[in-house]
């Protein structure tokens, strides 16, 4: 029996590099052969999209972007489709970001939005949208912005004075906004918006975030403090499915799915071995053996 046991031990102490290799292979398979998986729509994403599509023309929406180059692939679809949809509905959009490395990502997504506007639709900077760019990552920043929109920074990201822009004529405090779209990336700073904007003025809030923040935000969705949320690649794929716009998220769910399946099987194997070893016979004294 000694031989068999050593095999089980080997499986239990699998070299990390083998796990990496298994993971990499299962990640790559769908690129070669797509699986064509259907995307189920979850209630929180449905609520998010309903909120966006019911914004009446002329509403003023604040869009905050805190994704960085590593999280943007997960939030890009939700984010750019949301912006596009808001412009299609003739909403006015006010952009800002709390991450110093997010402004280039914003510009990149605006290019996509402009290219996908329906025929005949044009958007003009200063009239349909304004971008103040980066503001310091702190709760005080949001509080200051909500108290006096033109007071925190007096110029936009491109050096124009905010009061010279036509769109800003009627926007003075956080109360002049009808909705806040908060892209949190993986930062977990949605509390800034929840506490300083939603709580202070009652402005509705929807959140786009990486999956890592989903469990925490679900609580606020249930309590009604957050009106809806699109989380991670999965949320992006759902938004693509509901809205009909194409993006990268739907494609990206496939390698994710397959590697998750592989990994779940691996974890089940290692846990089965652990349980059978631990509870199958007398529990061994832990920490007793060092190889």
């Amino acid at each position, binding site marked *: 029996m000694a031989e068999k046991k050593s095999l089980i031990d080997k499986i239990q102490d699998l070299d990390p590099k083998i796990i990496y290799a298994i*993971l990499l292979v299962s990640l790559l398979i769908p690129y070669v052969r797509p699986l064509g998986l259907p995307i189920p729509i979850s209630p929180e994403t449905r609520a998010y999209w309903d909120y966006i599509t019911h914004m009446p023309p002329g509403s003023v929406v604040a869009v905050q972007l805190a994704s960085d180059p590593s999280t943007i692939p997960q939030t890009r679809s939700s984010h750019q489709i949301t912006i596009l949809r808001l412009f299609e509905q003739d909403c006015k959009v006010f952009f800002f970001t709390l991450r110093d490395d997010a402004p280039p990502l914003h510009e990149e997504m605006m290019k996509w939005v402009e290219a996908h506007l329906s025929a005949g639709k044009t958007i003009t900077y200063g009239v349909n949208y304004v971008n103040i760019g980066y503001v310091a990552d702190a709760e*005080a*920043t949001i509080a200051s912005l909500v108290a006096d929109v033109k007071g925190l920074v007096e110029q936009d990201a491109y050096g124009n004075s905010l009061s010279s822009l036509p769109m800003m004529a009627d926007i003075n405090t956080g109360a002049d906004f009808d909705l806040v779209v908060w892209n949190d990336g993986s930062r977990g700073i949605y509390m800034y918006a929840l506490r300083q904007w939603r709580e202070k003025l009652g402005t509705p809030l929807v959140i786009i975030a990486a*999956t890592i923040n989903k469990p925490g935000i*679900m609580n606020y969705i*249930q309590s009604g403090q957050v009106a809806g949320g699109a989380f991670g690649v999965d949320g992006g794929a759902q938004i693509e499915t509901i809205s009909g716009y194409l993006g990268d998220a739907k494609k990206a*769910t496939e390698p994710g799915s397959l590697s*998750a399946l592989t990994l779940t099987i691996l974890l089940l194997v290692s846990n089965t071995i652990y349980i059978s070893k631990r509870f199958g016979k007398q529990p061994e004294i832990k920490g007793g053996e060092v190889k």
Partner: protein
Amino acid sequence: MALYKTQGPIVVAFLSALIVIVSNFVDAPGLGQLSTDVKSFGAIIAGFALFVGLLGIMQSHVNNVTKRKPLWQYSVLLVAVLVLFIAVGLAYGANSTQFLWIYDTIYGPLTATTYSLLAFWVCSAAYRAFKPRNLESGILVFTGLLTFFGIQPIASVISPIFYNIQSFIMSVPNIAGSRGIVIGIGLGVIGFGLRVLLGWDRSWMGAD
């Protein structure tokens, strides 16, 4: 100890917190503007604080180079690219195509890839350490695997049960547990606030 070293900062912290808190509940002439200014000061100083961290990085790597510490050659590279970024950014402007080009070719791929590597570590660590040692960690492992797998589109192809279980865990027990945590954290903030206001908590001042 001199008053201006400890008592002064405590008074300043007390006043800024008081202005911000009172203006949230009480309407008084001039108070709103004062509190807006205090908040803006908070935001501006937070910006400077990020800068202090940058100086620390610069200092420690210049130190590596001058003292020829191990791997000092890499520190040369680090300082060089830092200077390159600042030079290009200041010379051409933060919105210039030149500055965006070095972002797209150097910073973007490096930061994205560095964090993506964690996928590997997380998987191997999960394989080795994610074990049901007792009832509690058993529940953790069980719900963890079900949410991890159930959220994937492939799970609902295999059986819709997985998706439904995942959705149940996420929107019932998860919410119940996180509500306890959230209320606890909220109370912690209020407690910390009182200690700062009264000068009972001086940990933020650091050592001398």
